[in-house]
């Protein structure tokens, strides 16, 4: 595999990092990735990341859960084995619906929450036995790492990053 070079610029403050990201973006450099120990507000916008659509998936999963609850209560209580409970026969789903509201609500939440989280884990590629990919262990403590792919502009980028307050700059061969 061909190896490509990247610059790893480390910062030790979120506000300095945010300004640095804006400065690097202003110079039209591509920022491959930023690793942070905690969420930095406005970082996704500064980096130009598209908004996440996970909330929309949660809505669709919720609708799915609701549909399954309706189908399940209808099939089990009305179609497959109708009963006369306390003089209230179950021959019509709609008329028995009030008793099914708790089930419909719980299954909506169950599906929306779990499937959204699973989608999040899959999209962000996190699951048990997955190896961590942050290049420096300090990025889960108090350092922020900006990864920029470089060609022959190492000098120029280094000067820029130093000016923005990077505390450490490494050029790394990424395999």
């Amino acid at each position: 595999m061909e190896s490509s070079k990247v610059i790893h610029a480390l910062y030790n403050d979120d506000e300095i990092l945010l300004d640095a990201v804006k400065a690097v973006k202003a110079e039209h450099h591509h920022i491959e990735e930023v690793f942070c120990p905690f969420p930095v507000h406005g970082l996704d916008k500064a980096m130009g990341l598209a908004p996440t659509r996970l909330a929309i998936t949660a809505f669709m999963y919720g609708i799915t859960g609701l549909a399954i609850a309706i189908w399940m209560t209808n099939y089990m209580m009305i179609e497959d084995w109708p009963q006369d409970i306390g003089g209230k026969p179950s021959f019509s789903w709609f008329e028995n619906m009030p008793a099914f509201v708790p089930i419909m609500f719980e299954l909506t939440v169950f599906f929306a929450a779990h499937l959204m989280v699973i989608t999040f884990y899959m999209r962000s590629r996190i699951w048990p036995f997955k190896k961590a990919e942050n290049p420096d262990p300090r990025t889960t403590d108090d350092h922020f790492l900006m990864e920029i792919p470089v060609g022959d502009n190492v000098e120029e980028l280094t000067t820029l990053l130093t000016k923005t307050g990077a505390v450490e700059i490494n050029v790394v061969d990424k395999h």
Partner: protein
Amino acid sequence: MSHYEAPIREPLVLGDKSYHDITEDIARPIEGKANKNWYMAFYISLAAMLWGFGCIFYTVGTGIGVWGLSKNIGWAWDITNFVWWVGIGHAGTLISAVLLLFRQKWRMAINRSAEAMTIFAVFQAGLFPIIHMGRPWNGYWVLPIPNQFGSLWVNFNSPLLWDVFAISTYLSVSLVFWWTGLLPDFAMIRDRAVKPFQKKIYALLSFGWSGRAKDWQRFEEVSLVLAGLATPLVLSVHTIVSFDFATSINPGWHSTIFPPYFVAGAIFSGFAMVQTLLGIMRKVTNMEEYITRLHVEYMNIVIILTGGIVAVAYATEFFIAWYTGSPYENYTYLSVGAATGPYAWAFYSLLFFNILTPQLLWIKKIRRSFIWSFIISIFINIGMWFERFDIIAIVLSKGHLPSTWWRFEPTFVDVGIFIGTIGFFFVLFLLYARTFPVIAQAEVKTILKSSGEFYKKRREQGIPTKPAIVLADNKITEEDSSDNKNKK
């Protein structure tokens, strides 16, 4: 930029702290050794747990007859304990979900432990209905799965089945919410672990969390949506638990104010339990600078509010019982009959522990005192147990037919299982306090600049929170990415 916070607000993180200090403080209890007190508490809890397990085996092996139940009082201690534990389990998700939606930053110091408490409490709650089945190995019959009995399905009209869905949804969603929040904190411990075994374990627990900007963006969105889903879920769970009683036709149970009143009571008891646990934990794990007087006061304010709702509900129940003029209503748990009957001691305990004691919290000195909050929280825990006991045992002890009147007396097995669940709960919580990051450190770091004492003072002096840029040596180090992994 962190959000603006009025200087008049008290700081949420005390002391002169940097991001790295927070890491050190949260990792210390995990990386250090447990002291004598921890071992003592652990062994006592373990003994209680084993005793409880013994009583459970005895119950399952011999039959439910070893409990103090009868034909009229078909459930008493078990359902009391079930509702008590579920109620305690309400504070965790309330703190992390509802307070997140209300943008209450103080939740960040306590949400992790409160959620742990929630999950462990719901475990205990779940034990009781399963044991009460008598044949717990048939417990899966409550699930709507195709079975060998022809097309015999579960009854979706039954509040007990609603409970199955509500509690299992609540437990699993709370667990996922908790674990997702834990990922960055496990990653923090993984990346600083020196022992290879510890590193392996935390690498596994952290699911390989790397903290990319996109991950954090998704993380925040998922947290927000989960909070939005968990908020009605929290309210629904105790509502449905109250349906177990409210949909029956017993006087004293057949009450339309049960759902809101149960939910308020659950939050009341949940916060009391958080107060009890954190009162001990902040000392044991040296988290005094994160769980401050201000946190204690805020929790006490929630306790006053929910305790007030509960008090109004009691008064309503008592008034309505008298106002109906119905003789049956005179034997409900809040009535003249209860106040003068054989369970008067339970009636007055309820009023004393649940209504009178929390009123002390109106006094600011008491509300901000660690020791008073701790004592009052234990009183509320006892009071809320009595509430459920009164609702169940007093109401059932006097049925419509006086010849069936009967008094419930717990046997040693009833008491043993209850003590066992308390032991089990503390075993889980003590293990958690030694191995999990007890404070959501990634979240606390986000409010350090806006709500930390150090930064608040600096801002008052007009010093910006952003540090001055120190230019690094313009030296480029060339290295291989594989070397970089071992650095630090």
